[in-house]
C-alpha cells in the first residue's frame, strides 16, 4: 500500500474512537479552568503532555496544591504504560530514521496504539506502515486539541447541573472495566481501590502513587504465586 493510503487508513480507523475522546477532551478543558490553570496552560497541556489521563491527574493535583515533584512523579507513573506500547511498536519502528521515531513517539497514545498496532500485526506488511500510525496519531491529536479548546471556551455555557465533569470518572471506569481480563488484574483493581480510601489523608496527595505502587506489587506477587501453583 502507498504512503498515502496507509496514512488515510490510519486517519479513518481512528474516527470511531473520537466519540469517546471528544467528551473527555471537553471535560478536561472544563476541569483545567476549575483547577486554577489559565486558559493558555490548559490548552497547551493538551499538546505538551498530550495524554488524557496524565493531564487530568496533573490538573487535579495542581488544584489540590500538591508539591511539584509529587505532581511530576505521579504523571510519570501514570505514563509508564507507554513503555509497553513502545516495546510492542519498536518491532516495527526500530529501523526508521531517528527523526521519524522522534515524531512518532510523540503520537503514541492509548487510542493510536490500539488502532495502528492492529494494522502492524496484519499479514500484509510493507515499508510504509508507519504512515498508519502517523495518520491515527495526527487525527487523535487534532481532535484532542479541538475538544480541549471547546471545553475551555464553551464549557462556561454548559450548566453545572449537567455534571459534565462526571464524564471523566465514567471514562476511567470504562477503561479500567474493559482492561480487567484476568484475576491478577481484578486483584490490582480491588487493592488499589481499597488503598486509595485508606490512604486518602496521606500528605502531599501521595495516595495515588502509594496505592498504585502497592497494588502493582500485589498483582505481580499474586500472578507469580498462581504460576508456581500451576
Amino acid at each position, binding site marked *: 500500500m502507498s504512503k498515502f493510503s496507509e496514512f488515510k487508513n490510519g486517519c479513518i480507523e481512528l474516527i470511531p474512537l473520537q466519540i469517546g475522546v471528544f467528551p473527555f477532551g471537553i471535560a478536561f478543558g472544563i476541569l483545567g479552568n476549575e483547577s486554577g490553570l489559565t486558559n493558555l496552560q490548559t490548552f497547551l497541556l493538551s499538546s505538551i503532555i498530550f495524554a488524557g489521563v*496524565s493531564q487530568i491527574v496533573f490538573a487535579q493535583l495542581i488544584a489540590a496544591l500538591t508539591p511539584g515533584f509529587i505532581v511530576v512523579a505521579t*504523571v510519570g507513573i501514570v*505514563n509508564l504504560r507507554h513503555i509497553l506500547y513502545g516495546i510492542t511498536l519498536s518491532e516495527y519502528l526500530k529501523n526508521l530514521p531517528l527523526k521519524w521515531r522522534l515524531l512518532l513517539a510523540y503520537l503514541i497514545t492509548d487510542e493510536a496504539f490500539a488502532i495502528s498496532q492492529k494494522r502492524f500485526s496484519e499479514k500484509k506488511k510493507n515499508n510504509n506502515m508507519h504512515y498508519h500510525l502517523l495518520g491515527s496519531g495526527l487525527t487523535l491529536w487534532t481532535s484532542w486539541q479541538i475538544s480541549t479548546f471547546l471545553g475551555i471556551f464553551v464549557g462556561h455555557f454548559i450548566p453545572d447541573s449537567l*455534571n459534565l465533569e462526571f464524564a471523566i470518572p465514567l471514562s476511567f471506569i470504562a477503561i479500567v*472495566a474493559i482492561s480487567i481480563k484476568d484475576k491478577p488484574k481484578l486483584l*490490582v483493581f480491588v487493592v488499589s481501590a481499597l488503598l486509595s480510601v485508606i490512604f486518602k489523608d496521606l500528605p502531599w496527595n501521595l495516595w495515588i502513587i502509594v496505592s498504585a505502587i502497592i497494588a502493582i506489587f500485589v498483582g505481580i506477587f499474586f500472578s507469580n504465586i498462581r504460576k508456581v501453583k500451576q
Partner: protein
Amino acid sequence: MIWTLIIFSGLITYVTRFLPISKLMPKKLPNLVQQGLQYVSIAVITPIIINSILIDTENIIRIDDNPKIFAALIAIGVALVSKSIILTLTCGLAIIWIFEFLI
C-alpha cells in the same frame, strides 16, 4: 512555577514514549517489570475513580445521598457487558441526570 511543572510533566511523558523505540533500552525487559507495566493503568486510574466518586471536596467519604455511587456501579456493569466507552459514558451521565432533575 506551573509552567515549569507543565514542561517537566511533558518531558517525562515524552521519555516514556520515546525510550522504548530509541534503541537505548534493552530489547527485553525482565519479566517482573513487564508484568508490573501491565498493571499500571488499572493501579493508577482506579484510585482516581474512587476518589472522584466517594470523596467530596472536604476530603470526607460520602456514602449517603451520593448518586455518583449508584451511577458508577451501573457504569461498571455497562462497561463490562458492552466494552464500549461511549455507552458507559451515556448511561452513567443519564443516571446522574435522572437524580439531578427527577428525584
